[in-house]
């Protein structure tokens, strides 16, 4: 049994390493000088070990270019979107799960139907609307469309439904109003679910590509994901492979760190979001 177990782990370590190779390679290339990379990418150990080594690519990245601006945009958009999604999802999710009011059932169905509409089916009309309002090239233009996606409401609704009624009823008997119950009783209970939703939203916001590509035409409003797309197409002539790879590493750092710290929540978020991508 034990020997079998170690053989399994060992056997799986090789594919796991191979799985990691592309990422390692990106990191390694980002630490090699551009003029060397222009000639060959396999100086040491197929290029997997950064010898010759240089910090220059990262130094350049922060000295020139717009990577810091893009990074900041990504941060603003991701945090803004996360907060907005949390705000509307917890409130609406609570109301739909626990309050009684007319036309509740049709409303739930209406919200569920929104889950069927993919981003790609609305990005053209959204583009024309935002153009009419002069909204493009702004942070809110990048944030708002995703806030309308009802996945968060759906998740929070499921969560609130699972909380035992008696907690709420005790507060009602004490004469506490509905909004106070929501704020003082339910929200603290919902922290784990909110965490899950927050991570799901943050990852989505950080990595979204199609909508920023359409809405942000000015480089100063690019997110890092979009900016990276714009420099990878002409790396051969302009920037140098090492610099582009360094940008890729910088773009990935926050999500990787977030993942490693909150792994448990990320996994739960994926499972929960898995019911709808």
């Amino acid at each position, binding site marked *: 049994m034990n020997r079998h177990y170690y053989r399994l782990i060992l056997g799986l370590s090789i594919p796991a390493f191979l799985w990691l190779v592309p990422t390692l390679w990106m990191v390694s290339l980002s630490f090699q000088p551009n003029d060397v990379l222009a000639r060959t990418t396999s100086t040491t150990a197929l290029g997997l070990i950064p010898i010759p080594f240089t910090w220059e690519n990262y130094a350049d990245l922060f000295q020139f270019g717009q990577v810091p601006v893009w990074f900041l945009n990504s941060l603003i958009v991701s945090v803004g979107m996360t907060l907005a999604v949390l705000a509307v999802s917890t409130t609406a999710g609570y109301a739909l799960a626990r309050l009684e009011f007319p036309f509740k059932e049709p409303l739930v169905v209406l919200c569920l139907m929104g889950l069927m509409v993919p981003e790609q089916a609305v990005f053209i009309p959204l583009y024309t609307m*935002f*153009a009419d309002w002069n909204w493009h090239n702004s942070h809110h233009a990048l944030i708002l469309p995703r806030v309308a996606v009802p996945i968060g409401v759906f998740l929070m609704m499921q969560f609130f439904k699972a909380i035992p009624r008696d907690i709420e009823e005790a507060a009602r008997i004490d004469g506490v109003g509905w909004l106070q119950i929501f704020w003082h009783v339910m929200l603290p209970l919902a922290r784990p679910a909110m965490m899950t939703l927050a991570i799901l939203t943050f990852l989505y916001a950080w990595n979204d590509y199609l909508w920023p590509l359409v809405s942000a035409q000015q*480089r100063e409003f690019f997110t890092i994901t979009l900016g990276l*797309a714009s420099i990878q*197409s002409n*790396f051969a002539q302009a920037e140098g492979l090492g610099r582009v790879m360094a940008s890729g590493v910088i773009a990935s750092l926050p999500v990787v760190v977030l993942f490693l710290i909150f792994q448990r929540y990320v996994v739960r978020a994926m499972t929960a979001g898995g019911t709808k991508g």
Partner: protein
Amino acid sequence: MKRTILGATALLLAVTGATAQEVTVGRFFGDCEDAGTDTKASVGEACIIQSIINAADAELDGVTVETLPTDWGNYYDQIKAAYAGGTPPDVHVMHRHRVPEFAGIGALADLTDDLENAGIDPADWEASALEAVSYNGRIVGVPMDFHANLWHVNMDLMEAAGLVENGAPVLPSSPEELLEHAQAVKDATGQDYLAADFAQFPLGVRMVLALIWQQGSNVFDGDTATIDTPEARNAIAAVTQLFDAGLANPQLNYADSQQAFLNGEAAILVNGTWVVDFYASEAANPETGLSTYHAADFPTLFAEGATWADSHMWAIPSPLKANDPETYAAALQVLAFINDHNIDWARTGHMAVRTSVLESDAYAALPHRDEYAGTAEIARDTPPSERYGAIQDVLNRELQAIWLTGKSVDGALSDAELDVQDLLDR
């Protein structure tokens, strides 16, 4: 005197706290961060244009210039999206071939009556440059260059194959000779004769187009697509024979084909004028496989000379002229500045558009310039069309289908003709 007054005004404005007029510039050509303001020292398209823009920012009083470079692949998608969103840059670069598409709906400002005041003299432009920026008799842009397809030559490989005479490469004058030369290079050096981007951007298309024009034909005429022709078959056969004989590789994209040429793995690279100074500087670098570089006119394989050509030009969106006269005036100053630095832009390898520059000694002294002096004579392009981009895509797709996926020439040409006809009918 005028400059002093302008300077004084600028100083006054600065003192009273008013900010300078900001002009945003949209362009492709790639990024160059440390371009500086020395327009004589920069190398390569990206850095030369950026140094000119930086110089405009530094030298023009009361005008600050902000650059919004965009990557090549999405440039026109993004500039259109910006127009439609009401946020186009104040000045932007474009190709002559896009004029019908943009000017046709009134997107470009009519500059005809404002050039003189801004210090731009259209009379100094070559006739073909004036034509390039005109739409319905009005001037809608300031031309910056002509650029065309050249044959970039590795003289050492050609020499080894006995294809050099009097210091100039011997280039083919017929499709048969093309094959002979290619075989000679292969036999003598083991390397490919010719490389080009046949797999990504439409550089292969431009080569085939040139060969079609050389036979007096074209891909469309007015509203009628004329692609499925014997001339097109001849043109394609001339290129495809090299692939079939293993003397060229159709699977290289832009970066790979350029790398192959710089590594000394191909005697000829078919690419534009925009890389002449770059290849010249690479040839001087002992670490590359290219040491003796020559730039040649696209050879005539059929009856008449022809090579694909286009123009870069600068335009101002019409809403700016209508709504914001101050920024419009500042934008015109930027255009005038770029127009004044036509000679600096020509250092890329592009051909200048101003007669006074073309006739100057400084222009004649640019490296390799005399080697492709004949290109201006044979420059051609397809007829103007609002669907230029989409038509190029159709041709690129179908030619790639022949070269990369083994589609029959008959099938590809008839499909291309139907698709282009569809586009012309829309």
